[in-house]
């Protein structure tokens, strides 16, 4: 199905948020949001995805 991941339309096979991170190859520390709401790490496996969902995957970055 097609999702919008970090602002880019992307075709994926994963049906849950946890599987999506695995499919994308994320192994480090990231935080996730689905349709502008935070999804904690413990809820990713149970978070099913629907076509058109907007996913944000954020990683640590320099800041002021």
């Amino acid at each position, binding site marked *: 199905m097609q999702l919008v991941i*970090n*602002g880019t339309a992307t075709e994926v096979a994963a049906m849950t948020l946890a599987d999506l991170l695995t499919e*994308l*190859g*994320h*192994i*480090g*520390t*990231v*935080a*996730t*949001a689905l349709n*502008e*709401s*935070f999804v*904690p*790490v413990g809820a990713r496996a149970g978070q099913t995805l629907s076509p058109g969902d907007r996913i*944000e*995957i*954020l*990683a*640590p*970055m*320099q*800041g*002021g």
Partner: protein
Amino acid sequence: MPDTPTATAKPFYGTVLSHPLMLGTAQYPSPAILAEAFRASGAGVATVSLRREGAGGAGQTFWAMIRDLEVAVLPNTAGCHSAKEAITTAQMAREVFETDWIKLEVIGNTDTLQPDVFELVEATRILTGEGFKVFPYCTEDLVVAEKLLAAGAEVLMPWGAPIGTGLGLNNPYGLRTLRARFPDIPMVVDAGIGLPSHAAAAMEIGYDAVLLNTAVAKAGDPVAMAVAMARATEAGALAQAADPMEARDMAAASTPVIGQAFLS
């Protein structure tokens, strides 16, 4: 001879900072220079952020480096323009950085990057209700400060000048007023510091810490400037504790007049 103070006199949400210099981590020429700036200055806090990234990006390396510095970490919500956006970012930052501390930024104007204080107060109320320890980036407005404290903030971070300008303390009167009105609240001058003299001035009027980034990262020698900023905050804190003299308009001779020769 008094010890040069480094630890903050007031605790921030129960934590005494090892040094009153709170240093940003962005815009350095290299990660190595960033790390050396922290080590050489002894800065007590590192501010960090969250951004979009693909798998295997530089964020994980950066985060490992910051953890190795063994300083307190203060994640920010930089770039957020609404309470909702800032709240979600704070929730994500808490999980990634494993801290309840959040430097709450809700930007209201793209030219001045000044905070939207209405959204800021609302976000503070919600986040403190969720157990966050909020460090609100605010203006020096006294009434806004009162509302932030009423919303649950236990720290205030008024700006000195707009972010990245290096203009120093634009409104010393307003900053002094806040300090006088809230003598027991830990307060930080955040943003606008361009020179060590600005940092010292903030500490001299009783602020507990300063938060800066660009002034160090964009200096020709960031490591030397970080050290200069650290020493300036120490000097300012020492001066504040030493009870500075009152300024006056007319001259007052410091050399004794008694016993002066009559030579005219």
